[in-house]
């Protein structure tokens, strides 16, 4: 566990961080985000004492970093720089070996570890061992940079905008891999970026920094849905939520006033209700206070009945050929699952089967289009 307690830092007269307090649990992927110059990189560099802090304290697993020598501390914390930060005069192998050497790993174990590390970041050791950094692509250099951070198997890895110089495809690929590695090897990662998409994609928790203070520190979903203040909202972007369908649930966009009838009502009553409301379906629930969904009656089905059958109970004419979703089903899943041509109405249930609301095609469309509408407005 890493506790950052009331940390302040200034450069000359400029206060860069003011009274920052953040607690990071083990094995969490934390993303620190903010506009350039907000102090996010400074905060990162305070943790491994690349920069000295003015006030406050940082406690890693119960030990204040003030009591540890900087060089010793940094050997126990992985660090990934933008563009890898590899030593240009050393081969890939030598770059990794250098770190292993200062970590006091015995010579005979080093070569095996180098191969292991390169395999871990999906680089063929036989091919790349003896390459020099200038012979690698940006993505490959960054892979070696990640491998170097993992070399001495530290519990904590700091990453300073590691992927920002890469092309979008490579960036996505590496983001996926770093999240995978973090989970697989159970590392605590603190990752600095200015890219909100990257933050949402990777983070267990996001720490939004504004002018040296923590504006919000929470899970990505919370930050998207409930920005703590205008700054966060603006930084996150109003459209951001709609661009991330996995954070939008059915309950966020459903209508909570479904037109519903008890199953002991008649077909005629259902027809009248539909005409009155100008709709083509009615949801049928069980009698009683819990309103368990039983089925749907469709206008076109009722219109096929002759007048004599108008007195039939709804329980006899209802259709079970419909799709429903739960309140916490994500927009992503709804889009994936629902066949638009068939379902005019999508009932929304809670986990006990009670009817809570409904969705229609047009609601889904409007939810998805919100993102673009905002973009236009912003333009």
């Amino acid at each position: 566990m890493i506790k950052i307690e009331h940390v302040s830092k200034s450069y000359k007269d400029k206060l860069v961080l003011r009274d920052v307090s953040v607690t990071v649990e083990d094995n969490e992927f934390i993303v620190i985000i903010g506009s350039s110059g907000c102090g996010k990189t400074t905060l990162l560099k305070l943790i491994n004492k690349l920069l000295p802090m003015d006030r406050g304290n940082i406690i890693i697993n119960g030990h204040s970093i003030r009591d540890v020598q900087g060089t010793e501390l940094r050997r126990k914390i992985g660090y990934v720089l933008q563009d890898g930060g590899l030593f240009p005069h050393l081969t890939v192998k030598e770059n990794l070996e250098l770190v292993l050497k200062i970590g006091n790993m015995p010579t005979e174990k080093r070569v095996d570890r180098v191969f292991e590390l390169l395999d871990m970041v999906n680089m063929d050791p036989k091919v790349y061992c003896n390459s020099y950094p200038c012979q690698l692509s940006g993505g490959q250099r960054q892979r070696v940079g990640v491998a170097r951070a993992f070399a001495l198997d530290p519990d904590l890895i700091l990453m300073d905008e590691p992927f920002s110089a890469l092309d979008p495809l490579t960036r996505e690929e590496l983001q996926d891999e770093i999240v995978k590695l973090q989970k697989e090897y159970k590392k605590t990662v603190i990752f600095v970026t200015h890219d909100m998409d990257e933050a949402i994609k990777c983070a267990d928790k996001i720490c939004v920094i504004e002018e040296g203070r923590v504006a919000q520190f929470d899970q990505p979903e919370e930050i998207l849905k409930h920005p703590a203040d205008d700054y966060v909202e603006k930084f996150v972007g109003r459209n951001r939520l709609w661009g991330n369908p996995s954070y939008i649930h059915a309950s966020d966009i459903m209508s909570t006033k479904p037109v519903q009838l008890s199953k002991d009502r008649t077909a005629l009553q259902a027809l009248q209700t539909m005409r009155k409301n100008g709709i083509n379906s009615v949801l049928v629930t069980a009698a009683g206070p819990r309103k368990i969904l039983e089925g749907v009656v469709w206008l076109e089905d009722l219109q096929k009945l002759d007048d004599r059958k108008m007195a039939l109970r709804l329980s006899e004419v209802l259709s079970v050929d419909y799709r429903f979703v739960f309140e916490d089903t994500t927009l992503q899943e709804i889009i994936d699952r629902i066949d638009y041509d068939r379902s005019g109405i999508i009932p929304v249930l809670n986990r006990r089967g009670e009817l809570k609301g409904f969705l229609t095609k047009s609601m889904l469309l409007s939810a998805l289009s919100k993102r673009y509408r905002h973009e236009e407005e912003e333009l």
Partner: protein
Amino acid sequence: MNGLLEVFMQRRGELLELFIQHMEMTSIAVLLSICIGIPAGILITRWKTAANVVIGVANLMQSIPSIGLLAFLVPVVGIGQRPAIIMVIIYALLPIIKNTYIGITGIESSTMEAAKAVGLSGFQTLLKVQIPIAMPYIMAGIRISAVTAVGTVTIAAFAGAGGLGWFINLGLNANDADLVLLGAIPACALALLIDFILGKVETALTPEGLKPADKICYRTEKERKKRICWSVTAFILIFFLPCLYTLSAFLKPDEKKVVVGSENFTEALILGNIYSILIQDNTDLDVEEKFNLNGTMITMSAMEGGDIDMFTDYTGVLAPNVLKLGLSTDTDQVYEQVRDGMEEQYNMKVSEPIGFSNTYVFAVSQEVSDKYGITKLSQLLEYAGELRLGCTTVFTQREDLLPKLTDEYGVSFAEVNGLEGNIRYQAIQSGKVDVIDAYETDALLKESGLVVVEDDIGFFPPYQALSVVRDEVLDEYPELEDVLSEMDGAITTEEMMEMNYQVDVEGKTPAETAREFLEEKGLID
């Protein structure tokens, strides 16, 4: 070309020795520069305010003319290799400091941050990251320094340090281009050779990863170690091996020896050789020769510092320049003043006059002599207003020479051109000037067929040649006194002129000429 070949064949033994001496001085200076320059360059990267000061001072020192620096150093550190090496270090230091500084500060900040972030200590960073990455720059600095040093060392000959500058100096004195080339060509070749070898070392020490991607050639650790081994060997061959030469001299037991010094013009060199041979052949003392010192001031500081034990000079030089005596043209009076003054002020014994005098004379071309009917100084002064004078700067400056002519005799020449050494003879022969100042024993005076103007008014100060020995040396080796007195009155002006002629015109070495003279006179067997 034939002349050069001949000179080379004649002096090849001497050439080899001077070449080694040259390499040795270059090596010591460059090695010391490396030892000072690289740590200094590294240090100032960590202390930025010092960087401006150090680089500023190094720049400033670079701009001091080398001969001036040498003249400044001699009174402080004496003559010989010491001032020479210090001078070369001063010039060689800047490129090394500057390149080390630039090489290290030029390293990308992300690389430095990475070094810190992975947990390298300051010293590890220096050793594993900064120095390897800055290596190409540092080596380039060493290359520049070494090449410059080879050139600067030639100047060192003026302070009696030897080296290839000796030939250049001799050649300039004797107006002998071949002799100049004999010094200059090997110096040039040495510079190119050092540059070539250090270039190879530089390539070997440049980490592959820093080369352009298409030039990278992966080498196994074993291969790299081998290359570095070769580089270090080459480095040692260039820089350390020549130093062994000096070291061996240090290890020799201290023998009974006398150091004979001499200034850097032909006559002084011949006299230096005469004394050297005379002492070697007539006593069991060893003689070390420290010839080619640039002027009386340097020889006198060398005498005072004990770097040399004896030298030859002239009453007309010692009286005004060393003893600051007033002007007098009375030969005996000046001699006595010099003899007493040197003893009292410097504890040096001045010998009886060697016999010849080497005072100033005016010389005119045959045509001018005929045209104006000039053979005597009084006649020359009458026509001075129509004549163009070419003379040394000393002649224009010394109060008892040109200023005295102007002030006391009211004489002014049509033109006064400051000309040095043998250029005066070229100028008068090509008709650019009408009158030159000359030394009475100049070989070229005999060669060039000029008319020597007789001093019928006793204008010029006396210039009796004599030897000067430190009293301490005479106390230690009393046998010297008898040997040195053999030279009292031993050389006439004509004989001296003849010897100068043999060296300057006929191309004999001063040593040969000296030995022949001594044999002829029966002073040695």
